[in-house]
């Protein structure tokens, strides 16, 4: 084999654009961007066959910072967009991305049904327990006593949403948690999610240094989960319902049926319309 035909392994930087992020210095989303591009490089999908789809929010700005195809859509609807793309173009490596507000509040219904439909794609949620883009309101994952938002001066008083437990109950096939402070570990999780068939949820704890500065302490709180990934739904449910939200790693890996229409032509349009003839 001559050197001209040797295939060069893609690098993470091949998947990054030269566009400067709008994020605040220190925002966790910078390293999530690195993790996503590293995962693409590890899988090695040619960049024209990758797509990053998002909704609206600070975290949802991520597609433009990659060099692959992308769609920055409307608030809350990254998953239906990614679904439409993946179902009609199954050969693409489709990654939906966004924040906890985007995915679990305005997009909550799509989240449940995307888990249930189990289309083969990855959903990366940058969870900072706050609405960053609109300047610091409580999100579905915010603790009930967080009272720093003008909108809920006494705290929300509402129990936080449990995205991973809900994903499991709704039918997701792969559930993992990462931390933005560990970009390599998170890249590995995303790559594993890409390899696993069906709908894979990767929740990434990604601090909002501006509106939740106390999240800088997450660094000392996260730990790799002690128990290996399980495919037992009962055990997974127990661990997801009882953990404190800081165990990282693959928490559930299932073998549920993947939604994948065949897209095979068996008749011409002329044959189809002939059925209207009397």
């Amino acid at each position, binding site marked *: 084999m001559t050197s001209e035909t040797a295939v060069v392994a893609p690098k993470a930087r091949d998947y990054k654009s030269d566009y400067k992020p709008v994020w605040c210095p220190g925002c966790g989303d910078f390293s999530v961007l690195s993790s996503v591009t590293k995962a693409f490089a590890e899988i090695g999908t040619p960049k*024209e066959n990758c797509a990053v789809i998002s909704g609206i929010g600070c975290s949802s700005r991520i597609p433009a910072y990659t060099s692959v195809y992308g*769609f920055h859509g409307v608030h809350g609807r990254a998953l239906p*967009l990614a679904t*439409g793309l*993946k179902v*009609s173009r199954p050969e693409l490596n489709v990654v939906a991305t966004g924040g906890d507000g985007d995915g679990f509040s305005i997009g909550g219904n799509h989240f449940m049904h995307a888990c249930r439909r189990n289309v083969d794609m990855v959903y990366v949620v940058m969870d900072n327990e706050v609405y960053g883009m609109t300047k610091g309101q409580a999100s579905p994952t915010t603790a009930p006593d967080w009272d720093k938002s003008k909108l809920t001066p006494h705290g929300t008083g509402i129990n936080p949403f449990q995205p991973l437990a809900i994903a499991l109950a709704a039918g997701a096939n792969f559930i993992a948690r990462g931390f933005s402070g560990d970009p390599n570990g998170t890249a590995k999780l995303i790559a594993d999610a890409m390899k696993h068939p069906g709908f894979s949820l990767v929740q990434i704890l990604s601090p909002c240094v501006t509106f939740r500065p106390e999240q800088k302490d997450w660094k000392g709180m996260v730990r790799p989960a002690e128990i290996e990934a399980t495919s037992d739904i009962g055990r997974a449910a127990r661990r997801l319902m009882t953990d404190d939200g800081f165990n990282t790693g693959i928490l559930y890996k299932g073998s549920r049926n993947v939604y994948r229409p065949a897209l095979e032509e068996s008749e011409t349009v002329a044959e189809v319309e002939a059925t209207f003839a*009397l």
Partner: protein
Amino acid sequence: MSAETISIAVTGAGGAGVMTAGQMLLDAGAKAGWYGLMTRSSGPQIRGGEAAAFLRMSPGPVNCGDDKLHILFAFDWMNVERFAAELFLNSDTLVLCDSDAGEVPNVISSSGARVVALPLKKTVKEVEGGRINMIGLGVLGKLVGLPDEAVDAVISSALKKKGQEAIDFSKAGYKAGFDLAANVECDAALSACSTDGVERWGISGNEAAGLGGLKGGVRFVAAYPITPATEVLEWLAPNLEKVGGTLVQAEDELASIVQIIGGSFGGTPSMTATSGPGLALMMEAMGLAVASETPIVVVNVQRGGPSTGIPTKSEQSDLNIALHGLHGDAPHIVTAPNSIPDCLFTTQWSVFLAERLQTAAIVLSDQALGQSRVVCDKPADLAFIAKRDVVEANVENYERYSVTASGVSPMAIPGTPGGEYVADGLEHAPNARPSSAAEDHIEQLDKRDRKLTQFDYGNHWADIEGEGEMAVITWGSTTAPVREAIERAEAKGMKIRMISMRLLMPMQTEKFAEALKGVTKALVIEQTHSKQFFHYLKAYYDLPAEVKLFNRPGPLPMRPGEILEQIESWS
């Protein structure tokens, strides 16, 4: 005597087989060469309850109901008053009923219609495996003059799955009904006819819209059921699959609209269908399709509104939201089919336009078109096949939203090396990067506007027929009664021009002015309460000095006779 066109209503309790009888009558008529139209009406019950089939048959094409009824066949009197307003009974109507059905309801007898009671139930018992709808079909077959071969063929094919015994029972029932009618006087027989070898189709507006999508190249559909649009989606589900496409049932319309944006972004022409409440939910994402220049088609089958309104009845009251429901300056396409077969043409054309112009298109059908079934000539094949302007691999300095003279910028489809870009609902620079700069905003607004306004829509923007100083201007399903009213007026020696608008956005002001040359007064016909079409015309077009409006909301359809009255009283 034979009639030009005859109208028949068949009513009865759920389970009596009213719809089957109506459908068989229409199909047998079609075999014998008659055109026809069948609309259905039923009570609010999900299953069972009373039902009515309204048929109109004629040697020539029919697209709307008549304003007189020749025959009402009531298998029983169950809640017949519910349909009274739709029946158009008069003293010439022949009402057929069962001798044992009890007293004739007041709504019937007060019309002065001639009532003939036949021993239907008794005959059912006498025929082995007899069913009232086949006896009824026999009576109608005799009165209308259906050829036996046509009836035999239709019964055999409709009951093929049920086996020979069922076919024999039905034929015997038909014969018994045929004999029952031997002494019934009726002048509603149709003149003999033939198909002249032209292929005839039996199709509903909703099926036609689905087929239009398919023929236009649609291969991805996301669906959320809603009356009266569901049949578009139900027809597409199995048929898309056959041609290598797919339909996904979405969790709601917020999802279905965005799923088709995703499908289209991937390069697959994509479509959905909905009705008012669903269209309202889709509006934010329609703006995304416009801003990101992602082609999509939404077939909106209008029903009575606002809110849940009257789901099973027609109205033209989604015009405002279709034209103006998007936030921001969001030029898009709004089209409207004006007959059942035209649901095919207009939907296929809309797919072509959306793809060609990389924008969102709303097709405003309605319940009257969508859920009625017509016997028509096979529609001609059209040249409108989706053809998107796409870039080849590795084009240097590719910019997704490049500012072109036509306003259309070549699109890169995922999988194309060198075309990678991020589609965005944020305002952007030509290179697709988000931008809030004034010059980028104006440049992109201009471009998105220009590509629609500069495009040549040919003469499909409207159907313009006839000459005269008076014009009747309308759109959508009210076109059929307008056409028929004008035919009747012309038969009386009047001269009238009809303008039925198929392209409602972008507005074709110059072509409209051209179409109005020589017209001094215009009668506007629409089916809304708040005069939406009338206000639209006044806002965007130059109208003649004298303008008159005839409008009415749903559920009652417009009829040719009342439009003719408007024309005559204004001449």
